[in-house]
C-alpha cells in the first residue's frame, strides 16, 4: 500500500468517525432543533422532473442491469408509447406516433441531473451510443411524456427524459464492467465514487466501446454495375466517454465528455456504396457548477453556471470527390431557480435562464478537390423566464399552473400549462392537463444547405406550435397490481418537417398545415410471488393530417416485460417483448414487427464478480425500419439475433 493511499484511508476513517458522532448527536436532539438544520449534500439539488405534473415513468439502475439496456434509446423504448428508429447513423426517438423525417430528436428534452443536454444547433437529444451519458452512470432514468415547455422550454414538446446520475454518497465504491457481444463488440467501463462528509462526495466514470459491425445486405444495391448489395465491415462504431461529479456542501461541480465515430454503411445522400470513408463524428463536452442557498426561511435559490460544446463532422465519399460537413456549437448559460414555500400549501418556482450561443457554425465543403459550398457562422442569445405554482388545495385536490416565456434567435414563445390532480381515494389519481408549447426552428433547419446539391435552406421557416390535452388515471388496486391509462389529443400547427421539393428535387424543411393526433395508452404492472414482476402496455394512436399518411407513425404498440429470480440459483431472468404496427416510410411502408429479448443475470456480486448473458432479437428476424428520404433504400433491415455477455466487479 502506498503512503498516499494509507493517508487517504486514515482520512476516510476519521471522517466516518466524525460523521457517526454527528449522527448520534442528531438523534439526541429535540425535533424542533432538527427542523432548524439546513439540509446539505446531493439531495439539495432537487430533480426538477418530479415537479412536472405528468405520467412519469421510471427505469431504475436495477432495470437497466436486468434487461441489459446499453443506451438511452433501448431503455426508453421499454416505456409505453415510445419507439426508436435506427438508421445506422443515429437512433431516432418516436413518442406517441411522432418521429418525423429530419427530426433529429429535437422534440424530446434530454436532461442529466436536471440539466439540459440537447445541443443548441440541431436541438438533438442523443440517445444512441452517441449519447453524452453512459448507462453505467445512471441511477434512475425518468421519462415524462407530454409537453413540459412551461417549465423547460422549446424542446420539451413530446416529452422529457431525465437521467439521474449516481452521486458519491450513493456509490461509495468502485465497479468495473467488461462486455463482449455480437458484431465484434466490446465495452469496458470503470465507475468509482466516495461518500464525503456532510452528504457530499465525488464520482468519476470512464467508458469505452467499440463495435466492428456485421456485414449488411441491401438489395437496392444488388445490381449489375453497382455491387452485390453487401456493405462489408461498414457499420463500425467507437465511443469514449467520461464523467465527474463533486458534491461539497451546497456546491456541485460536474463535467462530462463523449466522443463517437460511426461508420455509415447506408450510402446516404447518394454517397458511394460499400466504400471506406463514410463517417459521422460526434463530440460533446459539458461542465457546470451550481450552488444552492437558503436566502430566507422560505426562500431557496439555486444558481447554475454551465458551458457546453458540440462538434459534428460528416465525411461523404462520392466518385472522385470527398465532401465534408463541419458543425460547431459552443455555449454557456446561467440559470437561476428560486423556490418559495412561504405560502401555506403552495410551492412557487420562479426561474430565469440565459444562454449565450457563442458559435452556431455550419460548413459544407469538398476536401478533394477543394471547394466551399456553404459556410454559416452565427451566434445568439436565448433568454427565458418561467413561473410555476403547485397548490395543494386539500388532501384530494391539487393544481399546478405554469407559464414560460422564451426569446431565442428563431422567435419568441409563450408556453402555459395547467394541471388538475384529483385523488378520490389515496390509491386513485386522476390528472387533467392542458399544455401549449412552441418550438422555433433551429439554425440547421433554417439555414443548412450543401450548395443546393441535396438540401436547401428555408430562412422563412416559422415556429411550430402544439396544444395538448391529456387525461390520465392511475389506480393501485393492491400493492401488487397497478393499472394506468391515458387519453390525449394533440393539435400541431406549423409542424416543421423535411420534404423533397418537387420543383427541384431538393430536401428542405417546411411548415406543415395543422394536424391532429389522439391516442389511448393502457398499462398494467403486477408483482407476483417470489419476486416475479410483470409490466405490460398497449398504445393506440392516430395522426390525422391533410398531406398524406403520417410517416414513421405506428398506429399501435405493445410491450411486455417479465423478470424474476430463477429458483434458488441466484440467477434472474428478464424477458422483454415489444411490437409495433406497420409504418409508412419516405419511400415504402414497412410491416409491423415484434422483437423479444432474454437476459439472464447472476445478481450476487461475489468476489469473482457478477455475470449477465443476453440474447437480443430472439427470433433472429431482420425487421425493417422506415428509411429516411436521404437514403436509396426503401427500408432498413435491423440487426438479427445478438448475443452479449457482461461481467462486472464491485469493490
Amino acid at each position, binding site marked *: 500500500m502506498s503512503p498516499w493511499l494509507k493517508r487517504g484511508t486514515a482520512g476516510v476513517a476519521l471522517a466516518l468517525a466524525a*460523521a457517526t458522532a454527528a*449522527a*448520534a448527536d*442528531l*438523534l439526541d*436532539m429535540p*425535533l424542533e432543533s*432538527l*427542523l*432548524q*438544520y*439546513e*439540509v*446539505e*449534500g446531493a*439531495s*439539495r439539488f*432537487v430533480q426538477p422532473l*418530479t415537479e412536472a405534473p405528468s405520467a412519469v415513468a*421510471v427505469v*431504475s439502475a436495477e432495470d437497466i442491469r436486468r434487461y441489459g439496456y446499453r443506451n438511452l434509446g433501448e431503455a426508453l423504448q421499454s416505456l409505453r408509447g415510445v419507439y426508436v428508429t435506427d438508421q445506422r447513423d443515429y437512433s431516432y426517438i418516436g413518442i406517441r406516433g411522432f418521429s418525423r423525417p429530419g427530426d433529429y430528436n429535437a422534440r424530446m428534452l434530454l436532461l442529466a441531473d436536471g440539466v439540459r443536454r440537447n445541443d443548441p444547433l440541431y436541438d438533438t437529444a442523443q440517445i444512441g451510443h452517441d449519447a453524452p451519458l453512459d448507462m453505467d452512470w445512471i441511477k*434512475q432514468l425518468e421519462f415524462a411524456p407530454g409537453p413540459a415547455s412551461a417549465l423547460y422550454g422549446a424542446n420539451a414538446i413530446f416529452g422529457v427524459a431525465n437521467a439521474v446520475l449516481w452521486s458519491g454518497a450513493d456509490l461509495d465504491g468502485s465497479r468495473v464492467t467488461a462486455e463482449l457481444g455480437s458484431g465484434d463488440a466490446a465495452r469496458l467501463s470503470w465507475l468509482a465514487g466516495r461518500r464525503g462528509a*456532510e*452528504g457530499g462526495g465525488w464520482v468519476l466514470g470512464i467508458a469505452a466501446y467499440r463495435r466492428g459491425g456485421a456485414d449488411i445486405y441491401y438489395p437496392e444495391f444488388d445490381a449489375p454495375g453497382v455491387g452485390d448489395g453487401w456493405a462489408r465491415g461498414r457499420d463500425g462504431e467507437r465511443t469514449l466517454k467520461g464523467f465527474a461529479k463533486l458534491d461539497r456542501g*451546497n456546491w456541485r461541480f460536474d463535467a462530462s465528455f463523449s466522443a463517437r465515430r460511426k461508420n455509415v454503411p447506408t450510402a446516404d445522400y447518394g454517397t458511394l456504396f460499400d466504400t471506406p470513408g463514410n463517417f459521422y463524428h460526434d463530440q460533446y463536452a459539458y461542465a457546470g457548477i451550481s450552488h*444552492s*442557498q*437558503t*436566502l*430566507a426561511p*422560505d*426562500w*431557496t435559490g439555486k*444558481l447554475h*453556471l454551465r458551458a457546453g460544446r458540440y462538434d459534428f463532422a460528416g465525411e461523404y465519399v462520392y466518385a472522385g470527390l470527398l465532401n465534408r460537413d463541419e458543425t460547431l456549437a459552443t455555449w454557456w448559460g*446561467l440559470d437561476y431557480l428560486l*423556490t418559495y*414555500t*412561504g405560502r401555506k400549501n403552495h*410551492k412557487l418556482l420562479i426561474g430565469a435562464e*440565459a444562454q*449565450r450561443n457563442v458559435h452556431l457554425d455550419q460548413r459544407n465543403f469538398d476536401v478533394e478537390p477543394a471547394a466551399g459550398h456553404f459556410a454559416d457562422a452565427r451566434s445568439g*442569445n436565448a433568454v427565458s423566464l418561467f413561473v410555476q405554482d403547485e397548490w*395543494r388545495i*386539500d*388532501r384530494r385536490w*391539487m393544481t399546478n399552473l405554469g407559464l414560460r416565456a422564451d426569446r431565442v434567435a428563431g422567435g419568441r414563445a409563450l408556453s402555459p400549462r395547467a394541471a388538475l*390532480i384529483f*385523488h378520490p381515494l*389515496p*390509491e*386513485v*389519481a386522476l390528472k387533467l392537463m392542458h399544455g401549449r408549447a412552441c418550438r422555433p426552428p433551429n439554425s440547421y433547419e433554417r439555414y443548412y444547405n450543401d450548395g443546393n446539391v441535396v438540401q436547401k435552406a428555408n430562412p422563412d421557416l416559422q415556429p411550430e406550435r402544439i396544444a395538448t390535452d391529456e387525461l390520465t388515471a392511475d389506480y*393501485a*388496486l*393492491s*400493492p*401488487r397490481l*397497478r393499472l394506468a391509462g391515458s387519453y390525449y389529443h394533440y393539435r400541431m400547427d406549423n409542424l416543421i418537417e423535411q420534404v423533397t421539393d418537387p420543383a427541384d428535387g431538393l430536401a428542405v424543411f417546411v411548415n406543415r398545415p395543422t394536424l391532429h393526433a389522439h391516442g389511448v395508452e393502457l398499462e398494467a404492472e403486477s*408483482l407476483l410471488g417470489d419476486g416475479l414482476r410483470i409490466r405490460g402496455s398497449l398504445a393506440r394512436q392516430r395522426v390525422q393530417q391533410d398531406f398524406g399518411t403520417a410517416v414513421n407513425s405506428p398506429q399501435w404498440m405493445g410491450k411486455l416485460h417479465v423478470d424474476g429470480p430463477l429458483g434458488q440459483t441466484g440467477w434472474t431472468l428478464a424477458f422483454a417483448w415489444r411490437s409495433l404496427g406497420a409504418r409508412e416510410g419516405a419511400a415504402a411502408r414497412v410491416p409491423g414487427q415484434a422483437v423479444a429479448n432474454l437476459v439472464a443475470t447472476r445478481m450476487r456480486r461475489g468476489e469473482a464478480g457478477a455475470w449477465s448473458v443476453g440474447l437480443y432479437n430472439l427470433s433472429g428476424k431482420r425487421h425493417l425500419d422506415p428509411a429516411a428520404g436521404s437514403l436509396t433504400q426503401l427500408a432498413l433491415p435491423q440487426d438479427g439475433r445478438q448475443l452479449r455477455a457482461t461481467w462486472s466487479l464491485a469493490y
Partner: protein
Amino acid sequence: MRRRSLRLLLGVWLAAALALPGAAQEAADAPRLRDAVIFKLLLFVDWPAAGAHEAAAPFRLCVLDDGGHGVAMADLAGRHLRERPLALLRVARDAGSLRKCHAIFLDAGEQRHLAAVAAATREAPVLIIAEGDQAIQQGAAIALSTAGGRIVFDINLAAARAANLAISSKLLRVARSVFE
C-alpha cells in the same frame, strides 16, 4: 453590456454565498438528518393499546425491500423507542407483510408505490411516512419534504385517524400543514 450584467449578477451571488454563511443554520447530511427526524416523529404518535405481550416487543419500522436504501437508517440500529427496541425491517410489497409494521417509510424514489402501500394498510394501525410534496394526497399520514433548505413535514389527520393512530398536538403545531 449584457455580458457585464451577467458577470455582475454572478459576482453578487458569489459574494452573497461567501458572506452570508450566517444566514444558514448549522448544516447536516440530508439522509442522516431525515432519519433522525423520522425517529423523533415516532415519539409523538400513539398506537392503539397493545396486549401485555406486545408492550415489550420490538417496534417495527419498515422500508420496502425493493427500495434503494443502501444504508437505510444505519444510525437508528440498536435504538429504543419508549423502552421498546427498534427493529428495522425490509418488507415485501404485500398486504400481509406491510400490515405487520408499526411504521413504514417510503423515500422519494418509491413514490409510485405509495398509493398501493396506503391501500394495503388501510384501517390497520400502520403509520405511513413518505417523502414528496404529493405524499399527503396519496395516503401518507406524514409527508416529509424540504422547503427553504430545511426538512418540513405535513400531516394527514384523516389518514392517521383511519389507521387508529393518535398524533400528539405538539407534532401538529410543528407541522407545516395539517390536512383534515
